[in-house]
């Protein structure tokens, strides 16, 4: 055994300074994070609140569930459909509009410098929270669904633009060269090589974005941009738990169904 131990190489120094530094930074950040959270204790009224919530859950507001007028505050089905409509328009329109932005941000299409600029623009667009965009658009086109559509649309252009450009940049360059070598000009290269190649991926990202936008659309109503958001917030603020629960359950069901449909389509694309 001794001669084996002699042959053993030097044990390297335990984990580099770099790694320990990272641990320290991360832990301090987390501690700092916790320090800023104020816990005011459960409110006096919370006990009563919880039993109200339970009551509301057991007596769902079926009136809201089953009325069919053209007003989100009165009819749950209408509100849900409006929310879906907002998500659809916002997503799919931006799906198309994002393409030129993405092309401008892909270095294998426009070259490094322009691509960096394009990426910057996309990041700028992405960073605006949808809620704020909704507020701005309400100021412009008035409250209601169109403002929500614009808000989602603009935000999604940013999100999809990034994903699209990543897809373009990682695509097989051979496809482009194939058309170029036949003598195709740039728009031909675009429409007969690049777009067909990345189309399935684009569609998949767009559908995924749609799933996310469904959730975002539910919030936008909060500020008046249409959909289920406004009725929901009113119900919460007025402690109308039976209505809150029926909306929440309806949302869970709707979003789950949409997710399932969307993922089965996405699976077929890949």
């Amino acid at each position, binding site marked *: 055994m001794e001669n084996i131990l002699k042959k053993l190489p030097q044990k390297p120094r335990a984990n580099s300074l770099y790694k320990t530094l990272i641990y320290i930074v991360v832990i301090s*950040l*987390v501690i700092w*994070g*916790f*320090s*800023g*959270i*104020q*816990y*005011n*204790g*459960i*409110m006096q009224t*919370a006990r009563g*609140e*919880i039993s109200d919530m339970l009551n509301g859950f057991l007596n769902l507001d079926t009136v809201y569930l089953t009325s069919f007028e053209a007003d989100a505050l009165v009819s749950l089905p209408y509100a849900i*459909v*409006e929310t*879906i*409509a*907002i998500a*659809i*328009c916002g997503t*799919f*329109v931006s799906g198309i509009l994002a393409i030129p932005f993405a092309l401008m941000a892909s270095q294998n299409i426009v070259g490094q410098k322009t691509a960096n600029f394009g990426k910057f623009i996309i*990041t700028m667009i992405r*960073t*605006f*929270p949808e*809620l*704020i965009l909704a*507020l*701005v658009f309400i*100021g*412009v*086109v*008035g409250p*209601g*669904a*169109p403002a*929500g*559509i*614009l808000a989602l649309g603009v935000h999604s252009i940013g999100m999809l633009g990034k994903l699209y450009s990543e897809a373009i940049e990682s695509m097989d360059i051979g496809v482009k060269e194939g058309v170029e070598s036949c003598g195709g000009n740039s728009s031909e290269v675009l429409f007969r090589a690049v777009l067909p190649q990345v189309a399935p991926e684009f569609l998949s990202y767009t559908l995924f974005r749609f799933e996310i936008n469904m*959730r*975002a659309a*539910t*919030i936008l109503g*909060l*500020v008046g941009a*249409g959909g289920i958001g406004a009725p*929901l*917030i009113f119900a*919460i603020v007025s*402690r109308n738990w039976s209505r*809150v629960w029926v909306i*929440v359950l309806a*949302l*869970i069901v709707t*979003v*789950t169904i949409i997710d399932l449909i969307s993922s089965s389509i996405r699976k077929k694309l890949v």
Partner: protein
Amino acid sequence: MISKFEHNLPKKPNKTKFYSNVIIFALIIISSAWFAGFNIITLFQNFFRFGFRLIGQIFFPPDWGYFDNAIPPLLETIQMAIVGSFIGAIFAFPAAVLAANNFIHIKWLNKTVRVLLNITRTLPALVLASIFVGLFGSGSFPGVIALSIFSFGLISKMTYESIESIDFGQVEALMSVGGNKWNILRYSILPQVLPQFISYTLYAFEVNVRAAAVLGYVGAGGIGQKYKIFLQLRRFDNVGTIIIISFVAVLIIDTISSSIRRRLV
């Protein structure tokens, strides 16, 4: 005269399915637009009439004086995002392990956890936050809970998908050595999944910073509360300040976080 090549052409593939899909697609979009009252022309008109004025009010110029006062709530926003991602991640890992059907072979457990995860992901953080404000009063605490729940669902889902796509050979190796489930977890799953798990947590953090910035609108802490106040006061220039400062913060955090994530994977 070139004679037509008639013989032995393969059957032309049927394109009706593709076209009918496209038509259905278009119908869905058009009817949605009609339902929502989305009229592009009037929109453009309104934009040119009101839009520019509003944007001018917000951004030109924003209230620079307000800048300093905006920093503490912004820091609170970031703190909320950190804590929310952290708590979410801690619960997400065991949940992901239980949901992975190639590790825990108890089907009902897998399914239950997955259903639970889906539910946490259907409700936006804002909705959760407003409910929790009703229970805990306004402040950052309800916001943190909402963000934790959201992060939990997000990180868990991505992690269990990761676990299900690992190289099974290493699991076989640990099995053949006589390892139990803990050994397999520690030596074959963890090494392969940990970098991705950390990457997902950072991604959740990026999303949370954006979400936290608006949670305040319902009273759940952070800089979002200011939006509500200033909009009510119609102090658009202050709104502009907040937008810009949130913007810059998100930009910085995104850049740092993305570069770390790239190094991990």
